[in-house]
């Protein structure tokens, strides 16, 4: 009964979304206030109905209702509750429902907090948001319905993929989807602005918080996925340049570019057409990411053929929204005249350079991801594009980005003098170079990646600190500190996010260069050296988990005879899915992780053991979290709150920067 209610709510949400699309658009066109007023209650109702529907599906998973086809395929009674819940979105149909849920929640949020938007703009934003909802709910209802029943329910289910039974991955998709789908708000704003034929500073201010929120979610989602890959997949890589990963990385890159160009629209009323273009593109990449993941076309052209209906449907959605958006863009972009004049050397230009590098790097990822498909279709060549290509083709753009970042952030708007802007950064540059040289001298004859990472990381981090110091003005240290603390939150957000970028750049370089690896067969009771550590395999025992069996090793890590940690790496076997997994054991530290994996027993006796010392591993995700935190701080900036709450507007003058 509850399942049917959920199913019914989804169908009703579909109807509501259709109304939400058509009436407000028509109302905005004919200036009919009553029709436009339909948008808000419709957006709220759609959100409420999808929440209901999602709740019903979750109920089906939690109570292990095996009359539901989806539950049978993806759940099992012995599975822990957390994974019963995360199983809701650990599959195609459920993840689409999550997609639609995020979409409707963003639409409802825009209806609630969009009170200060002009009536026609609000109606159009909500209508465009509604139309995306129509497309995705239709996709679900007609090709991938999560509420299908089975005529004869089995006694138990097929279990969720054991790899996905992990707390990190349980919450990775919701964050990622909030990010993907959040970019739909930027898209809706862009389309609405094109329909209005008007893009101004106010539009920039309205669209930026939504983009920022989406980008924060995306950052956290990607970081979680990468962290999961690091500890779960058993060889400690953190990024594989897999199509599925790239699918989330492209919108992130374009989203980052959009964030920066929206600043120019907001402050200087320039780059309008470009910003609109990026907003469309960012959501386009989100849709394409969904297409890549859902159709499986990249892994193999043949897996697409297995289920062409679904892939085709998403392709149609993609073609409709992108095609429509770009046609509208081509028609309307010429009327978006830029107002602010700026010189070739200025912060505006620096932000253009930032946009160029971010977009081209996203393009490289795109070409690399799609190339195997293209080569097979066009030249009949079956080939692969993997990490070595991306490392070589993508990294230079990030290096260039990190190089120009501190200089661009410190330049004044409108017209700048490179010499004068660079002057305060001389100290940072000298320190960064010194760090680079020192690292190069200390390390023993290995690649230049490590030292360059140290130099770049220092340059970006110190640059952000210099920027803050510059803004605190003159006077005694205490005066300056007080002034720095009173700086707009946007300034702090920018500094923190840029520091995060520096930290990640450094950590990626450090971890890939100074990694220690050891693979060997070890007998019980035997010790082996691992970098500066000594690892002893104490024992291996069999343990039983809730839905798996495992052999668990006890390994003692010591340094100079002093025990550092006792680690318990496991090799698990999930009988229902008939799948083995490794659970690496990691001793996490500030400067290094000790990472141990236990393998199969060897014919010669003992066990295969992999050990790693990974320097600065946590800094990679620490940097990503700092980027997200910076975004969050920026999101709480007064100018957005002032813009949001009309009551406070009279009392608080808007900060100049």
């Amino acid at each position, binding site marked *: 009964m509850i399942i049917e209610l959920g199913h019914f709510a989804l169908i009703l949400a579909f109807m509501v979304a259709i109304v939400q699309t058509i009436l407000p658009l028509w109302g905005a066109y004919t200036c009919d206030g009553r029709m436009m007023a339909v948008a808000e209650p419709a957006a709220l109702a759609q959100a409420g109905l999808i929440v209901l529907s999602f709740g019903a599906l979750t109920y089906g998973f939690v109570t292990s209702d095996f009359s539901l086809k989806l539950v049978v395929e993806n759940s099992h009674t012995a599975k822990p509750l957390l994974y019963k819940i995360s199983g809701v979105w650990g599959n195609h149909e459920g993840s689409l429902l999550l997609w639609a849920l995020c979409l409707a929640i963003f639409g409802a949020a825009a209806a609630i907090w969009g009170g200060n938007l002009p009536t026609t703009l609000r109606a159009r934003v909500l209508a465009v948001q509604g139309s995306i909802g129509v497309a995705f709910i239709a996709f679900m209802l007609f090709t991938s319905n999560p509420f299908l029943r089975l005529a004869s329910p089995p006694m138990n289910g097929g279990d969720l993929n054991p790899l996905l039974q992990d707390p990190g991955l349980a919450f990775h998709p919701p964050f990622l989807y909030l990010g993907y789908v959040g970019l739909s708000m930027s898209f809706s704003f862009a389309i609405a602005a094109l329909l209005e034929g008007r893009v101004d500073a106010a539009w920039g201010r309205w669209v930026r918080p939504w983009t920022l929120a989406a980008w924060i979610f995306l950052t956290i989602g990607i970081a979680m996925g990468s962290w999961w890959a690091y500890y779960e997949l058993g060889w400690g890589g953190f990024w594989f340049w897999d199509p599925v990963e790239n699918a989330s990385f492209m919108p992130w890159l374009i989203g980052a570019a959009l964030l920066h160009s929206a600043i120019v629209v907001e402050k200087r009323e320039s780059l309008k057409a470009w910003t609109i273009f990026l907003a469309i593109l960012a959501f386009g990449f989100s849709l394409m990411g969904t297409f890549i993941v859902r159709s499986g076309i990249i892994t193999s052209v043949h897996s697409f053929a297995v289920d062409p209906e679904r892939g085709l449907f998403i392709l149609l959605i993609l073609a409709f929204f992108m095609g429509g958006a770009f046609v509208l863009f081509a028609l309307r972009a010429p009327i978006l005249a830029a107002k602010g004049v700026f010189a070739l050397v200025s912060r505006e230009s620096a932000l253009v350079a930032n946009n160029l590098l971010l*977009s081209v790097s996203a393009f490289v990822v795109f*070409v690399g991801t799609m190339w195997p498909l293209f080569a097979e279709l066009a030249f009949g060549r079956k080939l692969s594009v993997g990490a070595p290509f991306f490392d070589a083709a993508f990294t230079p753009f990030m290096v260039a980005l990190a190089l120009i970042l501190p200089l661009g952030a410190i330049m004044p708007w409108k017209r700048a003098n490179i010499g004068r802007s660079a002057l305060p950064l001389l100290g940072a540059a000298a320190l960064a170079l010194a760090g680079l040289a020192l690292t190069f001298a200390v390390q023993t004859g290995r690649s230049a990646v490590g030292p360059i990472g140290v130099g770049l990381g220092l340059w970006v981090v110190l640059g952000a600190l210099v920027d803050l110091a510059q803004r605190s003005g003159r006077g005694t240290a205490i005066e300056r500190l007080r002034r720095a603390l009173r700086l707009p939150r946007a300034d702090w957000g920018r500094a923190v996010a840029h520091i995060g970028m520096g930290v990640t750049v450094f950590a990626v370089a450090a971890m890939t260069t100074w990694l220690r690896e050891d*693979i060997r067969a070890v007998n019980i009771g035997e010790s082996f050296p691992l970098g500066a550590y000594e690892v002893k395999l104490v024992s291996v025992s069999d343990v039983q988990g809730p839905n798996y069996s495992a052999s668990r090793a006890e390994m003692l890590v010591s340094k100079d005879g002093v025990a550092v940690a006792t680690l318990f790496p496991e090799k698990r076997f999930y009988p229902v899915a008939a799948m083995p997994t490794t659970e690496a054991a990691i001793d996490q530290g500030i400067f290094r992780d000790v990472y141990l994996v236990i393998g199969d027993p060897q014919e010669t006796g003992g066990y295969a053991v992999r050990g790693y010392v990974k320097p600065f591993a946590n800094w990679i995700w620490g940097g990503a979290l700092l980027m997200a935190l910076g975004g969050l701080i920026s999101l709480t900036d007064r100018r957005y709150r002032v813009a949001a709450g009309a009551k406070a507007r009279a009392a608080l003058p808007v900060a100049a920067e």
Partner: protein
Amino acid sequence: MRKLLILLTFIAHPVLAVQPDEMLKDPALEARARAITINLRCPVCQGESIDDSNAPISRDLRLAVRERLLAGDSDDQVIDYVTTRYGEFVLFKPRSTGSGLVLWLAGPLMLLAGAGLAYATLRARASAPEPAKLTAAEQAELDKLLHK
């Protein structure tokens, strides 16, 4: 179990890949072997290198690579040895010849094109005339409004 999950299992079959008994005694040669195998794709699994994969064929390939190295082949010869048998599908780093050149040049060319376009647009805009000054009549009107 749907495609995302299938994809995920493909990128990451989490079982030890390189086994201790496969490794060469000579650390320099073993390091070369690892550097080669990490960039060769397992022909039967999706998106895994033969270094990471636990498929039997990957083990055979790992052993073959080491055999060739012991026989004195150069790195390129070993890679050619595997490629002639399994096609360029096994190369994670696609060749930069023929149509492959497009892939490698796409990024740099896009950057050049974008930079050129941005430079032209920005220069045109920077040298655009300042907004026209007010005419005497407009100025008088403005003064009247301001000092009313």
